[in-house]
């Protein structure tokens, strides 16, 4: 299991469209992926869960990845939300 604190750089934060893309990205991996924000932990493979957190730009979140391809998953997902687009 790997855990990492990440700051969300996406300009708009995880609005509906980026959230959908993020979930799609998470679903490419077999590992279990979770995001924790303010003590609330949700499954990254579920779009409703992600959106219920209302993650804005600049928010501090923790990515938690557990499974066979955890390294790759962590890198890809971290890159996704650290990207400034």
């Amino acid at each position, binding site marked *: 299991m790997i855990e990492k604190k990440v700051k969300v750089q996406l300009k708009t934060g995880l609005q509906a469209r980026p959230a959908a893309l993020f979930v799609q990205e998470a*679903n490419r991996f077999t590992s279990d992926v979770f995001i924790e924000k303010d*003590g*609330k*932990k*949700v*499954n990254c*493979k*579920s*779009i*409703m*869960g992600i*959106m*219920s*957190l*209302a993650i804005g730009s600049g928010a501090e979140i923790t990515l938690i990845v557990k499974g066979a391809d955890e390294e790759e998953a962590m890198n890809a997902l971290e890159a996704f939300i650290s990207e400034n687009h």
Partner: protein
Amino acid sequence: MVKVLMEELIDKFQLELVSGEEGVHRNILVSDISRPGLEMAGYFNFYPSDRVQLLGQTELSFITKLDSETRLDRMLQLCTDETPGIIISRGLEVPKELLIASNQTGVPVMRSKLTTTRLSSRLTNYLESRLAPTTAVHGVLVDIYGIGVLITGNSGVGKSETALELVKRGHRLVADDSVEIRQEEEERLVGSAPELIKHLLEIRGLGIINVMTLFGAGAIRAQKEIDLIIHLEIWNSKKMYDRLGMDEETTKIIDVDIPILTVPVRPGRNLAVIIEVAAMNFRLKRMGVNAAQQFSERLNDAIRLGDEEGY
């Protein structure tokens, strides 16, 4: 860590803020209420200063017997840095020494028209429910014939689709995908939807739909106690699935053990009907009718009878 601000109580219980306005942002971290009777008599050894303090007729009439200096001293001891607030019940007059202490320390003093016991029990109930341990679970919560069924399983196994069919069959959706769970009492878990996504359901290929506007107010429910968990998983031919239903498995959420059934998913299995029946069967078992148990007893009898006839 969950916390409640003093101003939330002021709002909720329509308390009149008498003094110490700057302290309304103080945190309440415990649900217990303290009635500082012995403290008024000068015994502060075990003073629970982190609780909301409630002064009623008994306490207030007692302190009129004290001289003004002692009164001020006790009031100052009452107002610590961590005291969230002091509430006077029955709309009684606030002693002026308490006002002085409140202004000096910034502990808010409020007044309510309710009687002390009534106010105390209402405050405790409210705080207990607000400060209850919580967790979030990935799953769908549906009210089926009054049984709160939490459907869990990996992403893409068909939880939301099953929920949609259950709603279509007249059951009620509580939360899709992310269920917030509070432990309200020893053995009671209550689930609800996060505010932002309540009434919504995500169906692959359709996107996000609003169950409330599509199916009406009867198709949704704000919160529901969780009675049963149904775990969906892709059919694994090497795994043993329960064929009898005589044993009850449970799983722990927060501190409560909840019965869990694992249902394998395979094309052609109508999950909504299976879950609906699971809920009905669960109700039946609770009423004391256990089909599997009864059948097993009949089978045992038949075997015994067969043995006897054999001789």
